[in-house]
C-alpha cells in the first residue's frame, strides 16, 4: 500500500514536471521588468538623420504633447508591419513621434522613409545601439511613451498592434 502510494506520488510529480517543462518550451517570453514604467528616461543626445547635427533629446520633449520614441530599422520586417500605425499616430496633433534609427545605414533609413512615409518629427541615429541599450531596449521595434515630465508611461516590445494604437491614442487624449 505504502509502495503504491509512493509510486503514484512520484508519477504525479514527474508528469506535472514534464507538462510544465513541455509547455514552457513552446512559450517564447521576453522578460520585462515591471518597474520600467514611471521612471525618467535617461538623458541622451544623438545625430539627426537628415541634418547630421547633434540633438539633445530633452529639447524634443514638448509640454503639451505625448512624446513617443520608436526604435526602428530599415532591415527589420516587423517595423514595416507597424509603420501604418505610426503614420496614423503622426496625424494626431497631441503626439510628437521621434524615431531612433537602430544600427542602420543612413542611406537605407532614408530610403525606407521615402518609400513608406515619414511619421517622425525627428529621426535620431543610434549607429552602434548604445543609446537603445542605455534606455533599456531589447531590440527593434520598440516604442516608449513618454509624458511631459520625461517619465516613461509605457513600453511596447515588438511591433505596435491595433490595441496598442488605441491605448496610445487614449494616453494622448488625457493631455489637456
Amino acid at each position, binding site marked *: 500500500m505504502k509502495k503504491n502510494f509512493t509510486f503514484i506520488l512520484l508519477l504525479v510529480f514527474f508528469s506535472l514536471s514534464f507538462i510544465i517543462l513541455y509547455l514552457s518550451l513552446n512559450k517564447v517570453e*521576453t*522578460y*520585462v*521588468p*515591471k*518597474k*520600467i514604467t514611471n*521612471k525618467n528616461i535617461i538623458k541622451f543626445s544623438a545625430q539627426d538623420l537628415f541634418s547630421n547635427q547633434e540633438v539633445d533629446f530633452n529639447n524634443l520633449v514638448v509640454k503639451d504633447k505625448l512624446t513617443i520614441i520608436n526604435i526602428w530599422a530599415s532591415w527589420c520586417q516587423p517595423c514595416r508591419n507597424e509603420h501604418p500605425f505610426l503614420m496614423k499616430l503622426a496625424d494626431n496633433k497631441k503626439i510628437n513621434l521621434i524615431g531612433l534609427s537602430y*544600427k542602420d545605414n543612413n542611406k537605407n533609413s532614408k530610403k525606407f522613409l521615402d518609400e513608406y512615409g515619414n511619421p517622425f518629427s525627428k529621426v535620431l541615429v543610434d549607429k*552602434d*545601439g*548604445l543609446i*537603445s*541599450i*542605455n*534606455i*533599456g531596449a*531589447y*531590440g527593434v521595434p520598440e516604442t516608449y511613451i513618454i509624458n511631459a515630465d520625461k517619465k516613461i508611461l509605457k513600453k511596447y516590445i515588438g511591433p505596435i498592434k491595433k490595441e496598442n494604437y488605441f491605448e496610445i491614442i487614449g494616453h494622448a487624449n488625457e493631455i489637456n
Partner: protein
Amino acid sequence: MKLIKFFLLLLIVFLLSSTKIFSDENKILVDKISKNLRCLICQGQSVYDSQSEFAISMKLLIKEKLDKGNTEKEIYNFLKNQYGDWIVYDPKFDKKTMLLWGFPLILFIFGGILIFRKVFIY
C-alpha cells in the same frame, strides 16, 4: 641632450604600455561582467557568449562605462535598474528569490535525512 631624448622615449613607451595595460584590464573586466549577464533575447546564453545585436551593444556599453571610470558594481546596478534583477545570473537574496535560494538547501537537507535514515536507522 641624448639623455633627455632617452628619458623622453622611455616616458612615451611607458605611457603607451600603461594605456595598453589599462585597456587590457578593461577587456578582462568586460568579459567578466558580460559572463554574469543574461542575454535577454537569447535562449540560455550569456551576453558574453551571444553574438546577437543586443549582446554586442551591451558589451560596447560595458566597455564605454568602464572607460568612463564606472565600477563593476555601478554597471550592474545601472543594468538592473534598466532591465531588472533578471539580467544578472547571480540574483540577490530577497523575498522574491527566497525560494530560488532556499529550495536547493531544502532538497539537500531532505536528501540528507533520507540517506541518514537509510544508512543508520534501517
